[in-house]
């Protein structure tokens, strides 16, 4: 799904822009911090994004993909327990 060159489309490009929401800035900042601290490199971030189920990948916004990846990689590395983030939300 991430390899967009092989998914031809005629759809027009949405040129509208939105200012990054606080949570998007936070997500970017968290990923940078995780990278600086050695918990996740950019290739792992990309691999995590690529592991999204295809329909979720297409529906998700850019930073939603980053968030998904960060959680996936951190659970994989045992930094987060599976479901730990979900539990924190309820």
């Amino acid at each position, binding site marked *: 799904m991430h*390899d967009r*060159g*092989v998914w031809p489309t005629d759809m027009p490009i949405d040129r509208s822009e939105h200012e990054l929401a606080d949570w998007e800035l936070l997500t970017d900042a968290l990923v940078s911090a995780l990278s600086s601290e050695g918990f996740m*490199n950019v*290739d*792992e971030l*990309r*691999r995590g994004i*690529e592991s999204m189920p295809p329909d979720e990948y297409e529906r998700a916004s850019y930073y939603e993909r980053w968030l998904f990846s960060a959680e996936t990689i951190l659970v994989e590395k045992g930094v987060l327990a599976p479901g730990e983030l979900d539990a924190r939300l309820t």
Partner: protein
Amino acid sequence: MTFRAGERVRVAARTHEGHHRTPGYVKGKSGRVERVHGRFRNPETRAYGADGLPERVLYQVCFAQQELWPEARRGAGDTTLVDIFEHWLEAE
């Protein structure tokens, strides 16, 4: 360095199940080395927590638009340049 600027190369047509940065639309296609970017760690192994060593040579390969998109109606002289690692390239 395996290739020099100006040499013709072909991108391997193989599938690769894991993370890799060779886009599908250039696989199996022929082009010409435009630049030699130097050596970089391999993202295919870095993506799984390895150190990405040994470094591999990264090439900027120039493809004729017509090679990639034979049906395209415009831009006969256009080109697309893609950064590709040495282990994806074969001599033409």
